[in-house]
């Protein structure tokens, strides 16, 4: 992080892919003494009890949540996630979800009735770009994270489509390095204000809404 010029990182445990509760505990142990690592919890609506999860999130002052519908084998549909979305809205907690984790139509149909839930679409590879762009245009409560946005002019296209307020720098570290996307951003003819918003301001705003 220091080498790349990254001050803080929002992190989750990949252990959550097999067991969300265990993974969240592993995350807390791993990040406990490192204030530059901001923990993000993963929930699994198919197995977790919402009341217990909400208490843990509150006690640990966790400010964002991530879901893995595909890995955890549930659809991102009202009948599966509605109570969880109501809770996220009431607590003003943003939700992160990967582009490979859901059916775009299901996500669209679910979120168009929930403008009070903020969702961050992450790991958007160029194969996702056509539908992801349409989804971002359609849902004003949908943000996008940049770790896999490596297509030619991809960042410029996103900024033209949805503006800088819904775009967040991300790296996918340790699978991908932190610095190349920062290099890309700093060579994309962005204003100082836009760079600040994308690299930190937008995320700070999302994370400070909850609780």
């Amino acid at each position, binding site marked *: 992080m220091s080498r790349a010029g990254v001050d803080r990182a929002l992190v989750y445990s990949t252990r959550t892919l097999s067991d969300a509760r265990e993974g969240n505990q592993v995350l807390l142990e791993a990040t406990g003494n490192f204030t530059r690592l901001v923990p993000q919890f993963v929930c699994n609506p198919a197995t977790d009890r919402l009341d217990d999860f909400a208490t843990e999130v509150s006690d640990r002052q966790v400010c964002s949540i991530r879901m893995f519908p595909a890995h955890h084998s549930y659809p991102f549909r009202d009948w599966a996630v509605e109570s969880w979305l109501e809770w996220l809205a009431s607590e003003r907690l943003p939700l992160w979800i990967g582009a490979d984790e859901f059916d775009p139509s299901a996500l669209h149909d679910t979120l168009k009735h929930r403008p009070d839930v903020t969702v961050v679409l992450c790991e958007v590879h160029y194969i996702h770009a056509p539908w992801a762009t349409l989804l971002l245009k359609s849902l004003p409560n949908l943000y996008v994270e940049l770790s896999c946005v490596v297509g030619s002019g991809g960042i410029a296209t996103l900024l033209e489509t949805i503006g800088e307020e819904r775009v967040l720098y991300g790296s996918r570290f340790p699978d*991908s390095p932190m610095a190349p996307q920062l290099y890309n951003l700093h060579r994309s003819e962005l204003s100082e204000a836009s760079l600040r918003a994308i690299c930190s301001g937008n995320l700070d705003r999302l994370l400070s809404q909850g609780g």
Partner: protein
Amino acid sequence: MDTPVIDFHAHVSRLHSMDEVLAKYLSIMDAAGVDRACVNCINADARSGNELAARFVAKRPDRFIGVAFVTPRYPHEALREMDHAFDDLGMKSLKVYPDIGLPMDDPAYYPIFEWANERGIAVMSHTEYYSETSTLSAPRRFIGLAKRFPRVSWVLGHSGNSPQGQAQAMDAARSGPNVYLETCSSYGDHGTIERLVEGAGEDRVLYGSDMLLMDARFQVGRIVTADIALPAKRKVLGLNAIEVLGLDG
């Protein structure tokens, strides 16, 4: 860092307006600090694709280097087309794409490679390896090719494109002095550049972007920010390409 930057892996396509493509290329290349890009056209039959690539290069020969494309599916036309592409159109190297259905070391390619060997040119191929279910462009296939055609500079596009593929690519580079690894990848895994330089040697790694599919700024950023020494970065970014293509520095 003041050093020549040459993109070894870029494409033009008939799907777009040439002037629009040129403007986008130059805008991104300037922003990324890329001096010249090697462009090929694999979206069409070889003749029309090479003509298109040559017309594109002719618009800014100071910024672009033509790369020919042929397919072994039409062997007699392929050899005539290489004569035309290199002697009439001024192409500097060759691109082949084994995922059209023939493995890279299929004998159907040999007349093409013999031609390339006689000329001592660089031949770049798409390479990838994820599992044994698809090995058409597995990097290990280049080990035999590099020995059989020693005057060809073999360039492994994407360097195998996965950790397993990279391991094969580095084995190929270590197997002979005429195998080079090109860096572009949409995954951009952490530590890839460092591993390739360590495993193949800093003289054997070439920067590439896969423009206009991918953004040169991100791909250059992978080299510039890699944890390798400055002289190695300069070689990867352009000095090695100058050597392989026989360009004036």
